[in-house]
């Protein structure tokens, strides 16, 4: 925990500081949209992280489902990774949605529209809200298993989000990257974009590690207290 904070936090903050400087002071002003386009340097990396961490969540959930009977210790560790990555995903997807709306109002004239990309991202956001509510408010031994199954639905939505602007040409701008000939951004904008991708990836990874450590600690405390109450129950029975 302390090592993650001592090493990860300064590294992530340093990269993000360069990213911020590049985005605000170095990247050229976009010809048609003006300065509002600079939201892109936070909006796109946040959305990329919001599509990356669900796969961490998926892999951890599958490991949990596969090992929950044969290797409960490994399953608990996998569950902690799943929880950590789900929370971090929700943070990034929320930022993607809100920064997108803040960009849309001056450019499109509307805050929101039921376009394929926006709707599929909203569905992803709702799935992760449900995932965390399920974990927080259900009692009984099946909570982790149900959450792991729900994470599979979230992982199904991720490729739909990615492909939505390729399959359906609605309101959202066409793909900027990997969109075929004629797409891409000005090479002078690339450093700002890449620094922010690297920075938010480092930040997200640090958050997942911190949250994972916290969840593991909580699991140990819970196990110890369950063991203590079992022992005291046995003494009373004697």
């Amino acid at each position: 925990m302390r090592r993650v904070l001592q090493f990860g936090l300064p590294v992530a903050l340093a990269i993000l500081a360069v990213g911020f400087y590049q985005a605000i002071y170095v990247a050229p002003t976009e010809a048609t949209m003006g300065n509002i386009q600079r939201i892109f340097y936070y909006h796109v990396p946040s959305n990329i992280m919001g599509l990356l961490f669900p796969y961490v969540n998926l892999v951890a959930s599958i490991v949990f489902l596969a090992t929950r009977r044969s290797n409960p210790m490994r399953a608990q560790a996998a569950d902690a990774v799943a929880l950590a990555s789900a929370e971090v995903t929700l943070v990034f997807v929320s930022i993607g949605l809100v920064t997108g709306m803040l960009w849309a109002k001056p450019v499109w004239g509307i805050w929101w529209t039921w376009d394929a990309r926006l709707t599929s991202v909203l569905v992803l956001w709702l799935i992760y809200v449900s995932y965390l509510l399920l974990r927080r408010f259900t009692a009984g031994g099946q909570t982790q298993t149900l959450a792991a199954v729900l994470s599979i639905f979230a992982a199904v939505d991720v490729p739909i989000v990615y492909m939505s602007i390729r399959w359906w040409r609605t309101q959202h701008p066409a793909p900027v990257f990997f969109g075929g000939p004629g797409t891409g951004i000005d090479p002078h904008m690339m450093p700002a974009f890449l620094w922010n991708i690297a920075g938010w990836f480092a930040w997200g990874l640090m958050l997942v590690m911190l949250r994972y450590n916290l969840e593991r600690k909580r699991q140990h405390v819970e196990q110890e207290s369950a063991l203590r109450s079992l022992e005291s129950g046995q003494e009373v029975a004697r």
Partner: protein
Amino acid sequence: MTMEHRNLVLAYLFTWGLQLAYLGRVLLGWRRVRK
């Protein structure tokens, strides 16, 4: 301040605000567990 500038500032503030709030929540949770 135009809407473009206001929304740009709001977007950056929201991003940092939410990320730092979440980091704070995790660190507070850590303190609580240690007690």
